[in-house]
């Protein structure tokens, strides 16, 4: 063992070669390199590179499962921070919800602050079957409400899922549409209606 270690050290020192195992890169070095490599523009400031606890954990465990206690801790914290609609009404206007689902603008360094953001649901999900241009990173939501009904527990769960998907899947790839203030309460209600209103084309 000692001989082999010495041999590797010598060959690395002399050739600067074949020492992949001996080159290590710390998380701090990665973050420092990133911070030096980006510049702020418009609404996109450098603090976007400061990771939350959740972002950090989901980066570290991107290629493996989160340890169970950490996963449960993150999910519990996400669920506890969900803000449900103050007036107790979950469903808005599905027609407006469809517009939110289609729109993709918002929070890019080229976007002006102030204008309403889109939810870009179709980027990752199938919703209304008439829209053929949909992505597949998330599951199909066609007939979402038809399959589940719109009882209080289903509405509450769906609201929380859209508000912060990490509440149910710690390292979900879905943006935190409520928690990160991507959509307003009123837009969230419209998206809820698109998913759950029996009149919505999603449930036809």
């Amino acid at each position: 063992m000692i001989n082999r270690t010495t041999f590797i050290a010598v060959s690395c020192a002399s050739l600067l070669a074949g020492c992949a195992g001996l080159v290590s890169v710390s998380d701090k070095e990665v973050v420092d390199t990133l911070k030096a490599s980006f510049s702020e523009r418009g609404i996109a400031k450098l603090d976007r590179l400061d990771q939350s606890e959740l972002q950090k954990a989901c980066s570290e465990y991107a290629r493996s499962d989160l340890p169970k206690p950490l996963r449960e801790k993150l999910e519990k914290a996400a669920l506890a921070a969900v803000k449900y609609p103050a007036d107790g009404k979950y469903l808005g206007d599905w027609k407006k919800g469809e517009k939110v689902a289609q729109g993709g603008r918002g929070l890019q360094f080229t976007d002006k602050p102030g204008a309403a953001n889109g939810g870009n649901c179709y980027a990752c999900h199938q919703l209304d079957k008439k829209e053929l241009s949909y992505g597949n990173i998330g599951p199909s939501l066609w007939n979402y409400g038809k399959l589940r009904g719109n009882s209080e527990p289903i509405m509450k769960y769906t609201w929380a899922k859209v508000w912060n998907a990490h509440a149910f899947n710690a390292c979900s790839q879905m943006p935190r549409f409520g928690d990160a203030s991507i959509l307003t309460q009123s837009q969230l209600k419209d998206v809820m209606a698109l998913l759950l209103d029996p009149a919505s084309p999603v449930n036809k």
Partner: protein
Amino acid sequence: MRTNMIGRVSAFALTAALGMAGISSALAQGKDPTIEAIEKYREMLQDGNPAELMVAKGEELWKQKRGPKNASLEACDIGLGAGVVDGAYARLPRYFADTNEVMDFESRLVHCMVTLQGYKREDVIKKPFSGGGQKATDLEVLTAYAVDASRGVTIAVPQSHQKEIASFKRGEKMFYFRGGPYDFSCATCHAVDGQRIRLQDLPNLTQEGPARRAFATWPAYRVSQGAVRTMQWRLNDCFRQQRFPVLKYGSQASIDLITFLGVNANGGKMDSPAIKR
């Protein structure tokens, strides 16, 4: 390919002219402009790559004496020795002893424009990418020329120097780094087979096949933008959609990510400038 350049460029110009004539007549007949645009698009994808014009311009610019030092780029060492362009792009990023840094092609190009031609770095990188409808930037045409000189060459991004290994390892961690208001990382879109955003296929860049295709086909002429887009542009625009701040041209993170992709792509064959939607 370059010996045949003039003939192919003329053929392309003719096709473009016919395409435009087609659109005017379509409008006169009241055809749906969207359908017409798609037809034009398909036609352009089939009938030649406008990047060939950029390659020709880039070659001319490479050999032209320019800048405060009135020098050409012919003495530029992009990894295979001063003046060697053929095959060099396929072996970048790599470590350069004179700067003691790992550099990708575009960073090395900027370095040569500064050291050989006497330009100021901040001027060279002030506007690296052309806007919609604008003519290609010097960096874009010079990059198109250099990558074309590696067409068909096997991708061989080195991992021998410690700094090359460190660049790969940082790039790998950056690929999985989740941040910003959407919590996205590169891996959100590029680490699973068969995924798409809307109808756009997303290559799984952790797999050899898609990584090779991606590395081999950038830079590319983007038909939808009417411009040659480089690898630095590709990363910059990914980060825009990732809701990150602006990736600086030639920054360490950009080089590290290109190293990560390039090493994953080793063994593939360069086929750039490609033509894309």
